């Protein structure tokens, strides 16, 4: 086990479990290695913690919890970056931003593609998306309605 000091205290981790961003992330190009931190409450939000920079942690969520029709497929180059084939699992995740006024948005224009098989991830910029990089998080009532309709 190794350990790092983060904004949230000391975190111990197994180096074999580290999530690799081979290209870093826009704005954090030099940060490649992150830990996936589950939400203690089991809610839909979790976070990734940089191993290389203790101050950097991003909240993520599966956007299909809120936008059921949202889907992003990796292209050939992205598959190569993730080191997987077309038949392998790949999940699109969204970065969650909580602003000073406590408003919450999801970055649906810049999803993080995550490949469980290789524990790799890349953030992509969608070119002709109808979604915004600041898509407001729907209220609980709306989410409920949608689930009720589908259920």
């Amino acid at each position: 086990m190794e350990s790092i000091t983060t904004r949230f205290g000391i975190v111990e981790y197994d180096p074999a479990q580290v999530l690799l961003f081979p290209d870093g992330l826009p704005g954090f190009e030099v940060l490649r290695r992150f830990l996936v931190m589950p939400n203690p409450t089991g809610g839909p939000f979790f976070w990734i913690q940089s191993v290389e920079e203790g101050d950097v942690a991003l909240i993520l969520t599966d956007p299909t919890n809120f936008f059921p029709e949202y889907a992003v497929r990796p292209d050939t180059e992205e598959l190569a970056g993730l080191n997987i084939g077309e038949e392998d699992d790949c999940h699109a995740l969204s970065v969650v931003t909580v602003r000073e006024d406590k408003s919450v948005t999801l970055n649906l224009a810049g999803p993080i593609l995550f490949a469980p098989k290789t524990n790799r991830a890349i953030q992509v910029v969608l070119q002709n998306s109808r979604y915004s990089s600041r898509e407001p998080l729907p209220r609980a009532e709306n989410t409920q309605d949608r689930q009720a309709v589908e259920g």
Partner: protein
Amino acid sequence: MLVLTRKPGQGIMIGDDVRITLVDVKGDTVRIGIDAPRATRVYRQELYEAVRQENRDAVSWDFSDLEALDKHVSKESK
């Protein structure tokens, strides 16, 4: 910054494998063609900058925000 004057149909080479072609000029809009290796990512600058800025904005949260998020989507909450 290097500034070059080009006419429609003329181009610019960046390194050995990126070719920029000025396709068309109409009023204040310029259409640009880009030939680059697939591994070279090409983005509209404002989209890339928006994602970059979002990442920067997204790192200043704390645990109370996470609790508020859970509450925000909780089915029990009113």
